[in-house]
């Protein structure tokens, strides 16, 4: 995939992720090669599964909005996303490079 055409940027655990306006968080993350989103309280992988907000498996933390389904939440310029650890805390990597 040629990502050089995408101008909008958000941050996943501090890493810059390009996205297309109108795209969901999970769509941009997966196209950037990230499909592991963290760990649930019961120790399960957080990842995209159903894509429509039913399975609750793709929960990520969005600064300013809290824990959300990555398949539903829209990408925004400068948005800061973090993975959630099993203990419920966010990963802590949120510094822009």
């Amino acid at each position, binding site marked *: *995939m040629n990502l050089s055409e995408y101008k909008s940027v958000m941050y996943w655990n501090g890493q810059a992720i390009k996205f*297309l*306006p*109108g*795209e*969901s968080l999970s*769509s941009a993350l*997966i*196209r950037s090669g990230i*499909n*592991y*989103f963290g760990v*649930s309280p*019961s*120790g*399960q*992988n957080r*990842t*995209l*599964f*159903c*894509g*429509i*907000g*039913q*399975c*609750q*498996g793709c*929960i990520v933390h969005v600064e300013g*909005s*809290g*824990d*959300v*389904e990555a*398949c*539903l*939440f*829209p990408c925004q310029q400068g948005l800061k996303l973090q993975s959630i650890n099993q203990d419920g805390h966010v990963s802590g990597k949120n510094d822009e490079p």
Partner: protein
Amino acid sequence: MAMYLAKMMNPDVIIVGAGIAGISAASILAKNNLNVLILDQAMAIGGNLHVQSLVTTERTLFLKHQIQQWSRLSFWLNKYQQKITLQCSTRFIGIDHQGTVMTAGLSGANNNLYKPKALILATGATEIVKPINGWELSGVMTAGAIQRSLKLLSKPFSRNIVLAGSGPLLLIVGAQLVEVGTPPLAIIEGGEPFRHLLKGISLPFNYKIEASAYYFKLLKARVPFYSGAKLQKISRNSDNGMLNLTKKKKSGEGKIITTNIVGLHDGLNANNYGTDFYSDLIIKRAGDCRNIMGAKASEIDGLNVGMEVVSMLTESEVKLSPWSGINSHLKAQKTIREIYKIKPSPDMFCLDDETIICRCEGIKFKDLKTVGNPTVREARLSGRLCMGACQGRFCANFIEEYLSYKNTNQEQIKLMGNRWPVRPVSIRDFVNTTDLTSNEGQIAPVTKNPADRWSHG
């Protein structure tokens, strides 16, 4: 598409889901002068079939009759825009015992309390996915999730995709992957649809045309299609991080396929649980969430359910015949299920003990085997089955079949709960709600010519 501004008032009817059935119902309600609020948790309206991408205007993955249907639905939305408020990225949170409905936007907007007179749930179907050893690995998702991504982007999101499970959606998504230039590496179909093809003779003509088009697209792209085959195991390749899939045919021969993404799908279920509660609020379901019926029937069902609500709210004594045509589509869906039916076999429940059965809570097959013959309450409270965030949407189907198989002579228990998915709702969402319950809408007087209320052509 016109922009819909949120109107700060209490609607007569709230519809959850801006898909075919929801928009269809809204149109007939609005035509009869009722104020309607349609919510959808997605960013784009159209449900799953007609998802209106915010990224691209390309619609190459939509067939002609689908584009026609959407033109019809969006025509009605525009025509009645004074009566219909549409809020995307807005979740239906729940209903309290007094019939107060709470909604919450994903970014904090549209956090409102309403007291509608009726609620119509038009949330669409849920995908059935049977557990496979390794299905919890990242890179494994539903075929529906892949399809949604393709429709939203009209471009590939990944190469190296394998589709596995059973049902016509594997053909459809496979053909759509061919269309965007990333044909699947393989389709692993558990049923043997070509053996039962004669059953398809009774299907409506356009169903047959559509199926043939999908199949020939796959044939032309030389996509390997394995029927009567099962995906047995998914594991992570430690050298390259890809997924290794072990495929098994009926004859017992196996094969390893290496890929990045797996799309699983074993059929569709209605999404008809949740919101059992007690108040005067009228609650109806419309479309696939009520009964799997397909796109055309969902449009008819939306009109009929909408008209039913109109009759209840306006206390009309006139009973008119509903739109017809649903039965032929329900029959077609039944025929399709028969074509894809997988014969029960002794190894249906021969899963590795370490196979995750409950994706939310990590319950394994070895845990399920110890559950015995529980009542629904025992299964949920002691076995912790179907108690995770998805409330059984991705595990109940398999667990019910397994317990029924194990405890022969017992009626199959119904484990699905009464709850929506347990999703994150912050305290802030509750605190910041705007109470709109007392901004009453106006109920329309009965029209002079009752037939007018039905005409919708």
